[in-house]
């Protein structure tokens, strides 16, 4: 906790959300972990420098984990860290001091702090080469380079590629307990595959009839799971489904113009039978709001 000049700082300013929650900078997302990290650093600074003035400029105090709210309250009430709601407009060097200019959102008035040390709480970003890795693995990623989970609520550690799992910050900013939970969760998902001698799948997968396939590969285009690859059949290019990767959505079946693809459940024949069956039901047993009027 020393400045470059070797003196202990008497006034310390922490600035939250530098490069996060800022659409104008291209980083609209919240970096999630910084509020608590800053609070911790401020409390540590206090323990080293009992007489320093310590400020923390924030937009919202996001202390939403177990014991987090209590920690921030202690920082404010017992450790005398002054939290100021405001987003500093600029920091200017003046006579060896760093002048932090902001608005105090509560009073609406400008506020200026002459600091010896300014700590910028940078937003978390994905690795620069994250998209490259994602493309290599064939998994989805968002415009910020964070990998996509299969479902935001129900499949937090799976990806659109069966057998590839994600945990921690690569998916988006998150704290240690969450990352550890996700790591264990990813482990169990991997175990589900590895613990068996044979990979057992829901039978709901697509299958190519190579006699019918024209090799147009339209199916490959629509497969989000990259479960379809090129194959050769009787010296012709045909599509082939990897049943270990296929998730059984049926997009390829609907996309196939030649009727060469079929699903093992929800197949065309089954669905045609259901549709036809609807109109074969005797009148009067079809339970409508009004009366049953024949119109065939």
């Amino acid at each position, binding site marked *: 906790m020393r400045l470059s000049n070797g003196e202990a700082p008497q006034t310390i300013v922490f600035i939250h959300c530098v490069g996060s929650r800022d659409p104008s900078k291209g980083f609209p997302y919240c970096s999630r972990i910084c509020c608590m990290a800053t609070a911790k650093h401020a409390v540590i600074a206090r323990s080293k420098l009992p007489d320093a003035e310590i400020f923390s400029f924030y937009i919202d105090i996001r202390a939403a984990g177990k014991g987090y709210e209590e920690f921030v309250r202690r920082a404010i009430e017992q450790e005398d860290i002054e939290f100021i709601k405001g987003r500093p407009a600029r920091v200017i060097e003046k006579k060896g001091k760093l002048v932090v200019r902001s608005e105090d959102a509560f009073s609406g008035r400008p506020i200026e702090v002459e600091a010896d040390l300014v700590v910028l709480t940078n937003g978390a970003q994905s690795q620069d080469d994250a998209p490259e890795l994602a493309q290599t693995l064939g998994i989805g990623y968002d415009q910020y380079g964070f990998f996509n989970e299969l479902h935001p609520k129900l499949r937090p550690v799976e990806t659109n590629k069966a057998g590839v799992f994600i945990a921690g910050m690569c998916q988006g900013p998150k704290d240690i307990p969450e990352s550890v939970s996700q790591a264990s969760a990813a482990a169990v998902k991997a175990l589900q595959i590895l613990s068996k001698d044979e990979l057992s799948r829901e039978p709901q997968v697509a299958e190519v009839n190579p006699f019918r396939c024209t090799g147009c590969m339209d199916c490959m285009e629509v497969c*989000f*799971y990259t479960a379809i690859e090129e194959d050769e059949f009787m010296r012709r290019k045909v599509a082939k489904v990897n049943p270990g990767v296929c998730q059984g959505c049926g997009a390829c*079946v*609907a996309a196939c113009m030649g009727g060469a693809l079929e699903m093992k459940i929800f197949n*065309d024949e089954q669905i045609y039978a259901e549709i036809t069956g609807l*109109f074969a039901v005797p009148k009067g047993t079809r339970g*409508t709001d009004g*009366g049953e009027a024949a119109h065939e």
Partner: protein
Amino acid sequence: MSKERDRGYDPTIVGLLCNWCTYAGADLAGTTRIKHPQNMRAIRIPCSGRVSPHFIFTSLFQGADGVFIGGCHPADCHYTSGNYYARRRFALMKSLLDFVGVEPDRLTLEWVSASEGDRFAEVVTEFTEGVKALGRPNSLKRDGLES
């Protein structure tokens, strides 16, 4: 459409409902006893992206007055992008129906999540009313295209 011809008209609608959202939303509408017309017959499909144009034509050939496709809200698709494929095909199907002389409004695509029982009832009611207003179809079946 003559009023005479449409008297007592009680259309039959084929519902192709995504297993992960609309089908569950229909269940919820039922368990929470939200009223809606009973003209639709639900057929469970894995994803709105599974809906082949053939399903729609088969339904109309068989005598359906309308076809309702229910999928997950944008970005919520269980299979990530099936609903986008459905949306693209839906637009094409609308033109195609128009081309073959079937009112495009006999086909709809709606996003209903598993928790939106009320929304399910709402969109089904709206579509049913719409099909009723169209009256008996100049249907593919009646015109002898199939049977």
